[in-house]
């Protein structure tokens, strides 16, 4: 989240699209209800009438996978009616910047931007660039009239997204569409703010990144970034998934969102040169210019005294990707399926149910020599070999199940969607012989280390040279029990030597060797500081010479009245509660909306002598506001200091363009005759490579004419491993179900409560039909399109009698977004048929479910 959960209460308009907070983030509704109580409006755009829709002020249906068409129409609506926030757009975004004169858009080039190479389905992004002046700064037209300026190009691009075209694609009734556009468009004024919430309904598409970009453009146009009650807010699907990405669990980033290098980036110098942006714009802070300090400190945290200036701080020891290698989920499981892995750690996950193409994943697990499953329960992954259709006698995979503690049996931090890092205490002793994950890692580490010591191996140093200073050692040098506070302190970082301020005479001691570093501004690139994650620097600091766990703070003060609660736990970065908050003030530092002042510039007081300073939330950098001497632009993480409407960094276009999902009932894309789906997906190549192309995706609309999507329910968490074992939750949601409209049910002869089979090109599963008014057919391109939906929380293993059903992910295409390779789970094609009559389906007094 750019903002935070509690901040939802400050919004005038809340767009919930691509998520269903009432079911999946129930506590967020506390803040949404508070916004409503203040007169705020909740808008829900969703293929189905969800629990969120049930309490929304406005609901608009949309066919799955057409969000860019819907949002593109919104951009067009805002621009046509001049609803955008002009002062903000001109000063804080790249709207006035001039783009390369040869840049062309899908309207000119039948569905693609300039630079498209059909053969390798990639873009040469040469023309996706700003025109630079002699100093290397983009040329601008603050009047926004130049035909090559971003604003003008944006307007031209989205002029194709008329209400008629858009609604023919999305299936949204025109009046609903306009009502949503008007409600969001009304927040382009300084004293009106809209926020947007999204989750997997936006990300799990072949245009996932562009879905979010489209809304980001809207928020920049309306001046809603940085303001209380504004922002673009990703509702994270797991309690600590924010922490997992912060700490580098994804393949393409190290901790603190520093890129993972490939093998050809062989020295630290090359790394820093390649990944550290420079800014010619004098008013840009260009925060990522500090990257070399964060990387040096990271390497010092990992290799300690073994990291020296002479050996590049151990840069060569850190694992790197092969050049051109993709190590995303889909790529890894494809390789496992092709017999390219010997072993696999499934740590706190259940890929046999959570992965797209789950059926093939189950087969892939059978090609391993060994698998370690760390979990609270046995699950469909650990027991894959005895699952449906498996022949245990033919499976050689040796499976180890390591029982780990649940969250309440251990101590540690948890980072939620608000970037709020809260310390959590152990409530009960671990059950049985289960251990906290960190203890399991500790045991594993010392055993692996011992093997390397004994047997050497190809490359032992990355393990042998690690610092592992997390508690008391036994006589063999092994850490007896891992002290999680020591881990938290290492993440924060230490001074590795006495550090002096040499600008004064005599030099003044800033930090003593072994002291905790106060914040990331103190980090250095010379090896004198360490920090496991620069973003978390400041989370465990010294106060009066004693370490203080900032994450354990529980102060309830609310000085701004906006619910920032600065003394409750700690938020990265630097305890900032709303990021990009410098955009919430005008160039003089006065809040655009004084009633929702996140920060405010207080000029120097000539009487008391108090210096000029920021008041309120921790600002995005201490520099004065833009109009002051040495003033800086607000978007400090962007090299040019402004919000980028023109997203030249992505692989599939600087502006979002509507393409159909890979599997879609629309044979011809009305936006482009030539390119039905995202043109950067190498479909022909993939189809040629795959043994079973329909596993990836299928265009057999005759067999699979119905749009399908998947979702979660309040009662079950992810694949349900934790919740299906809880009888009270299973009682409420006991079984797989498939929801469908009355029209479709009538067409198929299905009654509420019947058992039905859902089939896709990947597989088949059965469940109970819920025939409901909450699903409706769509009028798309003058044709009636049906859509069904189902949850993905069930699995064959538990409930033990098999009555739960199996995972909806058995049906999902094994394909995803070209930027991230997140799978397209939210729009695919199926067919349904009745397999058994109802067993006294329950009907309420309204005759419907």
């Amino acid at each position, binding site marked *: 989240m750019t903002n935070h959960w509690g901040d939802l209460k400050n919004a005038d308009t809340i767009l919930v699209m691509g998520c269903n907070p009432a079911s999946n983030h129930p506590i967020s509704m506390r803040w949404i209800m508070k916004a409503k109580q203040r007169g705020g409006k909740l808008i829900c755009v969703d293929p189905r009438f969800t629990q969120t829709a049930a309490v929304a002020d406005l609901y608009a249906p949309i066919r799955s996978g057409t969000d860019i068409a819907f949002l593109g129409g919104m951009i067009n609506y805002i621009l046509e009616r001049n609803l955008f926030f002009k002062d903000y757009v001109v000063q804080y975004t790249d709207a006035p910047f001039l783009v390369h004169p040869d840049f062309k858009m899908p309207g000119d080039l039948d569905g693609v931007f300039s630079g498209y190479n059909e053969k390798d389905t990639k873009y040469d992004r040469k023309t996706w660039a700003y025109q630079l002046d002699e100093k290397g700064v983009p040329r601008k037209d603050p009047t926004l009239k130049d035909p090559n300026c971003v604003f003008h190009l944006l307007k031209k691009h989205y002029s194709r997204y008329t209400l008629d075209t858009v609604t023919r694609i999305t299936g949204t009734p025109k009046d609903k569409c306009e009502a949503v556009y008007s409600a969001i468009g009304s927040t382009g004024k300084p004293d009106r703010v809209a926020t947007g919430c999204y989750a997997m309904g936006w990300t799990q598409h072949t245009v996932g990144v562009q879905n979010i970009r489209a809304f980001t453009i809207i928020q920049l146009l309306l001046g809603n970034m940085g303001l209380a009650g504004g922002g673009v807010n990703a509702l994270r699907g797991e309690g600590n998934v924010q922490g997992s990405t912060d700490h580098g669990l994804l393949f393409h980033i190290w901790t603190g969102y520093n890129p993972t290098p490939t093998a050809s980036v062989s020295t630290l110098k090359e790394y820093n040169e390649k990944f550290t942006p420079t800014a010619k714009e004098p008013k840009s802070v260009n925060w990522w210019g500090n990257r070399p300090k964060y990387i040096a400190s990271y390497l010092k945290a990992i290799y300690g005294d073994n990291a020296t200036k002479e050996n590049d701080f151990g840069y060569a020891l850190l694992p790197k990707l092969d050049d051109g290698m993709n190590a995303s989920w889909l790529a890894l499981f494809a390789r496992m399926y092709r017999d390219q892995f010997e072993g696999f750690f499934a740590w706190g996950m259940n890929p046999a149910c959570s992965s797209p193409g789950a059926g093939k994943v189950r087969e892939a697990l059978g090609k391993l020599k060994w698998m370690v499953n760390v979990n609270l329960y046995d699950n469909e992954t650990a027991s894959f070999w005895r699952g449906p259709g498996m022949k245990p006698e033919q499976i050689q995979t040796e499976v180890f199940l390591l029982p780990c503690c649940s969250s309440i049996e251990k101590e540690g931090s948890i980072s939620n969607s608000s970037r709020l890092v809260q310390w959590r205490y152990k409530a009960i002793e671990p059950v049985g012989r289960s251990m906290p994950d960190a203890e399991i890692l500790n045991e594993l580490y010392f055993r692996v280390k011992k093997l390397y010591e004994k047997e050497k191996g190809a490359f032992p140093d990355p393990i042998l040279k690690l610092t592992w200073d997390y508690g008391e050692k036994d006589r063999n040098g092994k850490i007896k029990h891992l002290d999680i506070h020591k881990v938290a302190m290492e993440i924060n970082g230490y001074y590795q030597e006495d550090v002096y301020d040499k600008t004064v005479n005599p030099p003044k001691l800033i930090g003593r060797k072994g002291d905790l570093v106060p914040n990331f501004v103190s980090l250095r690139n010379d090896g004198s500081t360490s920090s496991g994650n620069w973003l978390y620097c400041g989370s465990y600091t010294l106060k009066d010479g004693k370490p203080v766990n900032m994450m354990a703070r529980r102060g309830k003060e609310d000085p701004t009245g906006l619910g920032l609660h600065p003394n409750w736990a700690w938020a990265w970065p630097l305890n900032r509660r709303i990021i990009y908050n410098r955009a919430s003030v005008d160039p003089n530092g006065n809040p655009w909306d004084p009633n929702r002042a996140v920060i405010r510039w207080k000029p120097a007081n000539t009487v008391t002598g108090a210096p000029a300073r920021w008041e309120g939330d921790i600002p995005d950098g201490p520099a004065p506001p833009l109009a002051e001497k040495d003033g800086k632009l607000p978007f400090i993480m962007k090299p040019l200091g402004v919000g980028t409407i023109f997203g030249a960094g992505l692989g599939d276009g600087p502006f979002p363009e509507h393409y159909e999902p890979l599997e879609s009932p629309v044979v011809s894309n009305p936006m482009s005759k030539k390119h039905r789906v995202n043109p950067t997906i190498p479909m022909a190549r993939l189809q040629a490579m795959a043994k079973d192309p329909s596993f990836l995706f299928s265009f057999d609309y005759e067999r699979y004419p119905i749009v399908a999507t998947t979702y979660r329910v309040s009662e079950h968490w992810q694949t349900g491993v934790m919740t299906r074992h809880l009888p009270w939750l299973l009682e409420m949601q006991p079984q797989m179900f498939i929801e469908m409209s009355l029209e479709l049910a009538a067409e198929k002869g299905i009654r509420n409560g019947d058992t039905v089979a859902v089939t896709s090109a990947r597989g088949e599963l059965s469940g*109970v039909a819920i025939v409901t008014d909450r699903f409706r057919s769509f009028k798309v391109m003058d044709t009636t399109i049906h859509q069904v939906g189902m949850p993905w929380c069930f699995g064959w293993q538990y409930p033990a009698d098999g009555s739960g059903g199996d995972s909806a992910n058995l049906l999902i295409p094994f394909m995803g977004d070209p930027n991230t390779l997140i799978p397209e789970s939210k729009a695919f094609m199926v067919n349904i048929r009745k397999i058994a009559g109802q067993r006294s389906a329950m009907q309420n007094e309204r005759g419907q479910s």
Partner: protein
Amino acid sequence: MIARKSFFIDTTKCTGCRGCQAACKQWNQNPATKTRQQGMYQNPPDLSTATFKLVRFSSGTGPSGDPEWYFFPDQCRHCIYPPCKMAADEKAPGSVILDVQTRAVIYDPAVKVSPEAFKAIRAICPFDIPRYDEKSGRMAKCTMCVDRVSEGMLPACVKTCPTGAMQFGDRGTIRKMAEERLDEVRKIYGRASLVVPEAVRVIFLLKDYPEKYYEYAATEDVRGITRKTALKQLLHPFAAVEEWIG
């Protein structure tokens, strides 16, 4: 002394998350029952001696043609003059008692009730709340968490509710809260109403006709003479006096 208590259940803030339903089971250590998916989210299908709180789901098409989905967190209303107690005093004396401090209506698990007596007790309840275990001969329903309330805690369902749909407190405060919220909600939903606030300690706010939520959401339902009589008893002449006492 604990002042006499009431609930306010604002269904316009209920999102059907069912936290209350699970919390009720957890606090009362009521077992889960084996259920099946029966073509709707509501599960278990009905209240029982193991389910004191049940979110009822009701969907359909509204007058504008848009879908509607209503959530009704059903539970005992803890009537001020409980008809079930009147029937029980006659047919199964001692089985229904009023908690002296909170005025919660309590079914005494120590008192056995005959099937015939239970039939009469259930029939007279305007909200169809009483449930009966034939094996043990005991009745059961919501207890207002008197064991929690007497220790200064909120009822488990109220404590759990994330959206503020469920409130609990001294009766005067709650009634005022309900009236004020009704005024707010009426500005948007003209049909909004409180369900017999003068007669019950669990006051529901509904934005639409009660029958759209559930058959027994309100008392207007005509099921038989006994219930009509019960309704009259709910509006006891001394109700106003009782209200004034607190």
